[in-house]
């Protein structure tokens, strides 16, 4: 078969359409994928709550150590919405790096630890799509490898109590307008594990659309991986960089000042290249935008 495919590119080029227009949300993500079916949301129906809730923050080791501003923003945001935040100090790492690289023994140890640390938390919120996916999607598989039916039950129960931030805001609190103000041109990178493991769909975009004075522009080829992939970024640094350079090109096409995502690992990759290129574009976690006033 001869390769005679045409040269058309699927993505719309948003800059021209946006120049000179009044600021305001104009993003229209075609999120085709539906939510993976969070156990709690499925069994209890819309779990929208109005009263003050107690929330256990799972900060992730990565944010704790390198991106504390994101954690502070989550605390500020949830408290502003009238909820109480707890931070279990015993927490360390969910074991994603070990799990994704085939070190199941270490990952299982960290999973058991996580189950213990968050045993009493009624609801756990984390500002990381991939760490939430570790707990919800990968823990059950890891637990299958252990002859301990009790652990399997605990892990299933834990999954039902764990929420990525945008899921918690939209599904549990039933809000998209969190009262944020952010007068900047922003583009949003949806991140692979949020999209394809958690299936958060357009929740983060709906939250951003409700932010006052934001100028939200669609990122071309938004659903394509930025090339981070944990150890992939260093084990396959050349391929990772090739993926990243295309992502950066798409970011720059938008004319955005700020790239937003719900995972700081992807933002470290994207931001690392933007900084290296002195691109004059900064990265910011979704929580920090939502906490801005």
């Amino acid at each position, binding site marked *: *078969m001869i390769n005679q495919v045409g040269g058309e590119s699927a993505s719309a080029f948003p800059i021209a359409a946006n120049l000179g227009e009044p600021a305001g949300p104009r993003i229209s993500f075609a999120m085709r994928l539906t939510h993976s079916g969070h156990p709690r949301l499925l069994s209890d129906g819309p779990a929208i709550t109005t009263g003050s809730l107690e929330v256990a923050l799972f900060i992730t080791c990565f944010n704790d150590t390198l991106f504390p501003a994101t954690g502070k923003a989550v605390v500020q945001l949830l408290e502003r919405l009238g909820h109480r935040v707890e931070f279990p100090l015993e927490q360390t790492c969910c074991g994603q790096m070990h799990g994704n690289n085939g070190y199941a023994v270490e990952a299982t140890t960290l999973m058991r630890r996580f189950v213990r640390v968050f045993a009493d938390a009624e609801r756990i919120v984390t500002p990381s799509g991939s760490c939430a996916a570790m707990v919800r999607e990968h823990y059950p598989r890891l637990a299958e490898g252990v002859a301990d039916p009790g652990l399997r039950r605990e892990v299933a129960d834990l999954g039902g109590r764990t929420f990525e931030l945008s899921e918690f805001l939209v599904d549990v609190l039933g809000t998209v307008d969190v009262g944020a103000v952010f007068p900047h041109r922003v583009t949003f990178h949806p991140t692979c594990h949020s999209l394809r493991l958690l299936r958060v769909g357009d929740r983060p975009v709906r939250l951003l659309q409700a932010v006052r004075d934001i100028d939200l522009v669609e990122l071309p080829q938004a659903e394509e991986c930025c090339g981070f992939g944990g*150890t992939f970024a260093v084990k396959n640094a050349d391929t990772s960089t090739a993926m990243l*350079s295309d992502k950066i090109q798409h970011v720059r096409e938008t004319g955005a000042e700020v790239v937003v995502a719900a995972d700081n690992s992807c933002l470290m990759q994207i931001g690392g290249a933007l900084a290296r290129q002195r691109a004059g574009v900064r990265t910011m976690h979704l929580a920090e935008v939502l906490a801005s006033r």
Partner: protein
Amino acid sequence: MKGFPEQARVELQNPQLRRNLGVATSAIQAKRERAVAELDDWERLREAGAAIKTRALADLPRQLERLEAAVVAAGGIVHWARDAAEACAHVTRIARDHQVDEVLKVKSMATDEIGLNDALGAAGVEAIETDLAELIVQLAGDTPSHILVPAIHRNREEIRRLFARTIASGESLTSEPADLAAAARRHLRARFLRARMAVSGANFGVAETGTVVVVESEGNGRMCVTLPDVLVTVMGIEKVLPDWRDLEVMLQLLPRSSTAERMNPYTSLWTGVREKDGPREFHLILLDNGRTDTLADEVGRQALRCIRCSACLNVCPVYTRTGGHAYDSVYPGPIGAILTPQLRGLRAAPTLPWASSLCGACYDVCPVKIDIPSVLIHLRGRVARERARTDPESAAMRLIGRVFADRRRYERAQRLLRLGRGPLGRGAATVPGPLRAWTTSREQPHIPAQNFREWWLAR
């Protein structure tokens, strides 16, 4: 042996390859999305496809014996091949028995996998590829870089120059697809009429009826399976479908996923031999070559469901940049990264399970729902468990595991990391290791003076 990272580094430096691949895969990918969106039961078709293949694999010995009995009953001859050498020996012997010095080839992954063309060449038999893209690859002395579109790394102008040098020398040739196809047609037509033996692969083999199915776009495969006297099919044992009606699902899944067509132009089905109609002799070679080993792995075995559509290649952010050659494997892309280490053994392809960012795009498009990211993680585990305890990565992972397993050790490590804020951090980026790999294209993240838990305790 070079691994994927090194091979990829070479391929990534080829701007023509990047451009050709990017244009071709994004167009196929967009077309596939439209073709799939036409069906409101696509998700149910995927479920059915996965279930059919899972059932066939769970009952493989019986299904293969049913297939053998049905093929023999229809006048065919069945051979069993444990590995590539046995399969090649069968084909070579059949060619010798019929005293042919050339055989036509239908595009086939299985015959690429066993290196049939070289084996035939060594026995003095010329293999003539008849699929246009395979012909291009063969004329260029190249290897395929895509399952469906083997010459995806070449553009029209490159092909025009190749043809002008080989099969169309002296002819005036433009780079229009119709012109290039016409040149190939002139070259192949004489061979179709002359050759007495052809070799094909199989998309499916139906146990119930003994029918072999080949799906294609050009009609050259149809020529091969109808004109010569002798037809030999090399079929991986995982290609068996229990029942005729299973084709209803598979023939919807495959074309939409691979060429983004509702139906492919040519679907050839044949059952044994028939008087005065098509080949007079039909041989079916059932190829194992690592498949039963793969079947023994409870997680990895789902790779055997693959119907070679290549949708996972077109959507993969790694494949679409490196191309197929970086995988050093007949099966490239995400499916190759889980199939090759299992068929050839992990020691033959230890870097392939890491040739992925685990973005999950491949799983979403797979028509038989192979959870490629999970199999990659599983194979990483098998590689990691074979590593010596002294292996630097293994030792580092154990150490980090111990740090994370204890709050005090974790907090101490956080404070230690802060030393990286000074000259020590800049120094570390100059020695080979993860930090240097990171900083070749990106700035190091800023290490904050106060981490989150310190802020929490102080507030």
